[in-house]
C-alpha cells in the first residue's frame, strides 16, 4: 500500500489543461518536493489532493483510500493538513483562535474547546508565535503569517502535511528557520509534500522531487538526479541554476 499515490491525475478548466495525467508516489516519512515554473499546475495538484478542486480524470489514493469525490473536510479527517500559499488566516480572529479552528475541527470526533485551546498554545509555541497569540491576525507580519499557516495545519495532527510556498517572501535567515522547522516536523514522522521556489531549501531538505511543466510530469527523482536532468534544466532549473552558478562564482571571485 502506497502512502499517497496519483495515477493519471488531470484537471481541466474549460478547455485549459492545468494538470495533465500526472503519476506520482509519495512514500511514508519523506519530504517530497514539488517544483516547476509558474502556472505548471503545482497548486492545482495540491488543491485536488485536499479536495478543494474536483479531480477531472485519474485517481488519487491516500493510504489505499481513494480521494476522488471526497469533500475537503473528509480528506482533512483522513489526516491531510494544508498550508496555503497565499496565506489565508481568518482575519477577524486572533492567532490562537485561528489555530484552535484546526484543533477543534481537524480530527474526526470534534475536540472540546478547552483541550483545543491548550493544543493550540503548544503549537504556537512550537512555531514561535507564543507572544502574538492574542493579537488579531490582521496585524501580523508576512513571516508570522506563514508560521501561523504552518501551525494551523500542524495542529490537526496530520499524517501528511501539504505546504504551499511557505518560504517565499522570507529573508535568508527566516528561510533557514523554516527549513529547520520542516525537518523537525518530518523527524516526528509526518510526511511532507511541499511546493517551493526557494531552490536552496528544496535541494537541501527534500528526499525526492516531482517536476511539473505545463501540467505534465517531466521528472520525479532525488534532488541529485533532478539537478542533472536535462529536460528539467532546460525548462525550469536551467535559468535558475545559471543564475545561482553565476552568483556563486561572483562571491568566490
Amino acid at each position, binding site marked *: 500500500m502506497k502512502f499517497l499515490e496519483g495515477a493519471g491525475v488531470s484537471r481541466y478548466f474549460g478547455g485549459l489543461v492545468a494538470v495533465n495525467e500526472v503519476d506520482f508516489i509519495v512514500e511514508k516519512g519523506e519530504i517530497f518536493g514539488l517544483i516547476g515554473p509558474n502556472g505548471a499546475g503545482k497548486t492545482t495538484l495540491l488543491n485536488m489532493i*485536499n*479536495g*478543494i478542486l474536483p479531480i477531472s480524470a485519474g485517481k488519487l489514493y491516500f493510504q489505499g483510500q481513494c480521494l476522488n469525490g471526497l*469533500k*475537503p*473536510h*473528509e480528506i*482533512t*479527517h483522513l489526516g491531510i493538513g*494544508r498550508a*496555503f500559499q497565499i496565506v*489565508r*488566516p*481568518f*482575519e*477577524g*480572529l*486572533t492567532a*490562537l*483562535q485561528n489555530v*484552535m*479552528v*484546526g484543533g*477543534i*475541527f*481537524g*480530527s474526526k470526533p*470534534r475536540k*472540546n*474547546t*478547552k483541550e*483545543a*485551546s491548550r493544543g*493550540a498554545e503548544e503549537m504556537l509555541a512550537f512555531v514561535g508565535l507564543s507572544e502574538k*497569540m*492574542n493579537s488579531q491576525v490582521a496585524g501580523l507580519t508576512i513571516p508570522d503569517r506563514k508560521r501561523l499557516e504552518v501551525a*494551523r495545519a500542524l495542529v*490537526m495532527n496530520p499524517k501528511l502535511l501539504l505546504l504551499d510556498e511557505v518560504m517565499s517572501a522570507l529573508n535568508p535567515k527566516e528561510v533557514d528557520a523554516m527549513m529547520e522547522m520542516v525537518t523537525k516536523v518530518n523527524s516526528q514522522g509526518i510526511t511532507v509534500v511541499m511546493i517551493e521556489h526557494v531552490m536552496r531549501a528544496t535541494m537541501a531538505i527534500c528526499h525526492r522531487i516531482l517536476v511539473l511543466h505545463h501540467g505534465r510530469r517531466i521528472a520525479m527523482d532525488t534532488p541529485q538526479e533532478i539537478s542533472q536532468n536535462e529536460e528539467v534544466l532546460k525548462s525550469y532549473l536551467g535559468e535558475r541554476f545559471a543564475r545561482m552558478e553565476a552568483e556563486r562564482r561572483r562571491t568566490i571571485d
Partner: protein
Amino acid sequence: MAERDRLGRKTTAGGAWATRTVFGVLLLAAFLVPLALRGYWVRLLANVFMFGILAQGVNIIAGYCGYLALGNILFFGLGAYVTAVLMTHFGVPFPVAFAASGAGAVIFSAGIGLLILRLKGQYFLMATLALSELMREVISSLDITGGGRGLTLPMFTGGAATVNNFFYYLMLLLMLACTFCIWLIDRSYLGLAFKAIKFDEDAASVMGINPPPYKTAAWAISSLFTGFAGSAFAYWMGYIDPGVVFEITPSIKMYLMMVLGGAGTVWGPVAGALFIELVSELAWSRFMEYQFLIVGSILILTCLFTPKGLMDLVGKKFTWSLFTKGIRENKI
C-alpha cells in the same frame, strides 16, 4: 489580572464585575420601562426590540457566517402568516400558533437552505431576495391566506396598556433570548466555525469544517427568531397583508442596524437597532422631508468611516487616524 475565557479572549475580573453591574442595571431598567413610560414609548421600544430581533437574525447568518441573506424578511412574513392562518381558520390559541411559526420558519429554512446554501455569497443573496418575493406571490395567490386582501386576526383582549405591555415583554424576552443564543454561539466552537466560514470557506473546509450543515444551522437559528418576531407582529397589528409583512425596507433596515452596531458581535445589532430607530424617530418628527437623506447619509458615513460598526470604536482614543482607518483599509 488577565484571565482568558474558553476561546482565549482576555477578560479582567474587575472589568467583568463592572460590566455585570451596568448590564444588570440596564436589564432592570428595560423590565421596568412599562411602569414608568406611556403608551407611545412602550410601543416604540417594543418596536426597537422587534428590529433588534430581526437584526440579530441577520447577524447570525450574515454577521457570523458571512452569508448575506438579504431576503430574510421572508421568515418574518412566513411566521406572521402561519400565526394568522392558524388563529383565524383553525382557532388555535396564540402560544401554539407562535410556536408553530418558529417551527415553520425553521423547517422551511433548513429545507431550502441545504439547496441554496451551496451557492456562493452573491448568488445566495439574490436567491434569498427572490425567495422572499416568491413567498409573497404564493401567499398572495392562495385562498387560505386571504390573498391580497390580507387576514384579520382575532383581537387581543384587554385594554391599551395590557396590550402594549404584553407585546413589550414578548419582544424584549425574544430579543434577550436571541442575544443569549448568540452569546452562547459566540463562546462555543460554533462561533469559531461560523467565523471561519465567513472569512474563508475553502480554508475552513481544509481545516475540517464541513460548511453546509453549519451554514444551514446558522440560517435555521436566524429564521427561528425572525419567524417568532413575525408571529408576534401579526398578533400585535391585528391585520396583515402580503405588502405589509414582505416589505423590503425593513429587510434593508436590519442590515443597516447590524453593520452600524457591529456585524459579528453579540450586542452590536441591538445597539444598532436602538440607534437607528432613535435617529429615524428624530428624523421623522423634525425633518420630515429629509428623512431618506439623513438615513442614507448615516449609512454612507458608516460604511466609509466605521465599517466594523460603532462597537468597534468605543473605548478607543479618538484620533484622526482612527477616524480615517476604515477608508485607509478599504480604499482601492
